[in-house]
């Protein structure tokens, strides 16, 4: 394993069909994801546009549409560089039915293949959410730094 992807999961107290429609409709994408609206052509290869008041519009492309189970799109990692090869990561959502409602998993992958990118983000100060291996490496590396 290498640090190429991020995986997060959440349990939602609502049926998959409802989560699916919030996840994939322009109306709702523009509020839980963007903050100033969105557009989506919900089919593989379809255009996705997410808008933020402060950051402008980010263009992506729909990849997988399998209601109500799987939804994926590709979008730019460096939003200024735009939708070009070498600057895209893939985001895949999986919706699993559960007793409590829906378990929604998101995996964003493809970081290691990026060729563009902003300088490293420096504002995160907690180590939670690190890949296990990266955390282990960091501990080893910091152990070395701490030696006299």
């Amino acid at each position, binding site marked *: 394993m*290498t*640090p*190429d992807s*991020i995986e*997060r999961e*959440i349990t*939602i*107290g*609502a049926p998959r069909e409802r*989560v699916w429609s*919030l*996840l994939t409709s322009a109306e*709702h994408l523009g*509020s*839980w*994801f*963007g903050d100033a609206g969105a557009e989506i052509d919900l089919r593989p290869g379809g255009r996705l546009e*997410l808008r*933020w008041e402060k*950051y402008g519009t*980010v263009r992506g492309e729909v990849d997988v549409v399998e209601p109500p189970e799987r939804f994926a799109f590709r979008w730019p*990692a*460096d*939003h200024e560089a735009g939708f070009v090869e070498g600057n895209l*990561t893939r985001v895949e959502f999986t919706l699993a039915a559960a007793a409590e409602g*829906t378990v*929604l998993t*998101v995996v*964003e992958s493809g*970081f*290691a*293949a*990026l060729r*563009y*990118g*902003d*300088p*490293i*983000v*420096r*504002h*995160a*100060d*907690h*180590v*939670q*959410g*690190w*890949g296990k*291996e*990266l*955390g282990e*490496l*960091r501990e*080893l*590396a*910091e*152990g*070395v*730094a701490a030696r006299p």
Partner: protein
Amino acid sequence: MTPTSAPDPGVLTALADPTRWEVLRLLATTGDGTATTLAAQLPVSRPAVIKHLTVLDRAGLVQRRRAGREVRYAARPARVAEAGQALTALAHAWDARLSALKRLAEDPN
């Protein structure tokens, strides 16, 4: 909710190879090493180790130091930590988005 910046692609690409990962781990564990000492501990040749060290050096993940006739390499923990922080920031962004979606989905109105 905002879009987020990707981690430094150079660092992540450098880390994405299992042998390079192992080279960096060995350097982090032992403090420093040369292409020769590393090759002795890995199932790859010395020239291959040198290639990997060059990639790690370019990404800023190792520090090169000449000591007499040897070139010694050490891991640079700050760069590894930066890559980790970038991924953490992206993970937090997803947590925030998923929570917003959950609130929408569970809202009875």
